């Protein structure tokens, strides 16, 4: 173990954690505001190769490797780069496998162990790259390129992604498992790394990529549909502006009506209540009960709403009552003055009264019974009528005769 490297590495990680705020700010804004931090801190980070200045007169930026690390760990959507350089990695793998085999053959087991460690690292890097790339593509699809606003931009992004998928598929076709298996030969470790691990990763990646590709094409179709629809709407508006009196010809009256306009009229109406259905009795009763509560509710509401109006109406009603009452009084006085019997309806016709005859008779009876006892002694009341045809014991009053006792 290299003591120096260990020490420098620890210093670097400490520096990262000490200045995490600065680094995250640089990650989000893209550059560092040098005025906010002390020059010493900045210089330290530059020396540790955390920050760099791409060009004089340009603000400090994060090193791309650190940015990639953050993007990968945070699974940030900003990360849209796809490293499709699989061919290069494959070439490295082949070379290292050759090194390993040579060392084994020469019985240099220490060297062989180091080569195998390197090789393992590379194989896992390769599988990791593949799965990351696929995940990135999916994340773009799942939010439908939500990071760009307009449909046009989405279409461009979609085309870019399709290009990347094609690239990746091309690169994947560079996997030659027969060659790899030949290269691994009878070495168990090599075979495990080069054939089994790579193959399983290869299979999942190709499957997912073909899914990604079909999904991308589907999305592109949808975006194009959006564009088409927007154009249709705008075109229609323009057309209507130019020809405001435009009326499409009535396709509904053509002899051959297009299927689109053949929409049948609604025929179903609500069913009616069957009061004879015993099974419904409970529901119907509860419904009726409900109606009553609504009625009460409605009455109380109306009272509060139209108080002012009702007062006027009431005074009017009492006025007409008064008329009726005065007419009855006049009738009684007439009988007393003339000293002759007279029926209520006779007086009614003689004086051309306007009330309802029935109400008039009721009022006469009511007024008679409302007289003080001593006044009532002078008058006698005799109902004129006949017994009911059907119901025994009922007497129908048709008129009232009043006379002096």
């Amino acid at each position, binding site marked *: 173990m290299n003591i120096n490297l260990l020490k420098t590495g620890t210093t670097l990680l400490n520096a990262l954690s000490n200045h995490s705020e600065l680094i995250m700010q640089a990650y989000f804004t893209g550059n560092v505001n040098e005025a906010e931090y002390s020059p010493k801190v900045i210089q330290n980070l530059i020396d540790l190769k955390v920050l760099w200045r791409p060009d004089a007169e340009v603000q400090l930026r994060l090193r791309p490797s650190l940015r990639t690390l953050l993007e990968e760990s945070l699974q940030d959507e900003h990360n849209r780069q796809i490293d499709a350089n699989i061919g290069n990695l494959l070439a490295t793998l082949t070379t290292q496998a050759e090194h390993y085999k040579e060392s084994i053959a020469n019985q240099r087991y220490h060297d062989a162990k180091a080569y195998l460690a390197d090789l393992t690292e590379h194989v896992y890097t390769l599988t990791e790259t593949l799965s990351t790339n696929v995940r990135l593509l999916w994340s773009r699809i799942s939010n439908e390129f939500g990071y760009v606003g307009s*449909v046009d931009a989405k279409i461009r992004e979609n085309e870019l992604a399709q290009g990347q998928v094609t690239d990746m598929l091309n690169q994947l076709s560079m996997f030659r498992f027969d060659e790899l298996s030949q290269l691994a030969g009878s070495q168990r470790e090599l075979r495990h790394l080069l054939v089994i691990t790579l193959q399983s990763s290869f299979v999942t990646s190709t499957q997912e990529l073909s899914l990604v590709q079909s999904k991308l094409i589907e999305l592109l179709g949808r975006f194009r549909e959006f564009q088409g629809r927007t154009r249709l*709407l*705008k*075109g*229609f508006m*323009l057309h209507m502006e130019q020809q405001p009196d435009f009326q499409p010809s009535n*396709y*509904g009256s053509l002899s051959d009506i297009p299927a689109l306009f*053949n929409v049948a*009229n609604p025929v179903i109406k609500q069913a009616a209540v069957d009061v004879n259905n015993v099974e419904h009795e409970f529901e119907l009763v509860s419904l009726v009960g409900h109606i009553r509560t609504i009625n009460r509710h409605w009455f109380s509401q109306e009272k509060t709403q139209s108080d002012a109006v009702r007062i006027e109406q009431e005074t009017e009603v009492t006025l007409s009552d008064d008329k009726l009452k005065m007419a009855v009084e006049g009738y009684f006085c007439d009988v007393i003055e003339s000293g002759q019997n007279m029926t209520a309806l006779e007086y009614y016709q003689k004086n051309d009264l306007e009330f309802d005859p029935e109400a008039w008779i009721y009022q006469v009876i009511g007024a008679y019974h409302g007289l003080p006892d001593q006044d009532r002694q002078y008058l006698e009341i005799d109902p004129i009528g006949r017994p009911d045809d059907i119901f025994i014991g009922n007497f129908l009053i048709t008129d009232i005769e009043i006379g002096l006792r």
Partner: protein
Amino acid sequence: MITEQGRVLELLLSGEFICQTKDEDAFRFLQSSANRLSIESQLQILNRNLSTAADGEVFFASYILLQENERKFLSSQFQEISSHLMPVVEWLLMVQEAMGTDRPLTQGTVIRLNELQSVVEDTPAYAEQLGKISRYALFGSKAAELDAQLKLIFKRLVEVGYLIRPNQDKQIYTATGKIDYLFDVLKFIDETENLSLSERAEDAISQTKLI
């Protein structure tokens, strides 16, 4: 007890456009060809057939045989739908532009009335356009306040079936398949009358770009 089939039949016979947003169960029921066949055989008794529009996203009942009465109804219905075209198209464009999504409304698009209202209130051009839209016969608003105009427009669109309001307590609306049906109608008119609407729009866009 009403079966799912009976429910779907009732929906179709009451003139509904069945789409996934409006009634997901009924829509799924109609996805199976066996169910479609049995529904069709029942509709046949009433001189009706099961039809689809918007690439199979919308189902509705249509006539099989067209007699005088049916023709009369279809003709008046066409007049109704063509009277919807202008107000709804204008409304669609306004919503699309105000929401800044660049995407035309389609089945399932969610519109939050509060968001739309705040955008329209802040932009006099939209407010003016809204006032114009609300005075179309379809909406028939006489209100001068933006809030009332907007609420009335949405209420009418729910009544006519272009939108649904899944939760009565919230001012959130979802577009139904009838919007897609309207797009189909627009496309049909465009093609039959040779209006070449898309080209016209494209010309206008490229002209503004040149300016």
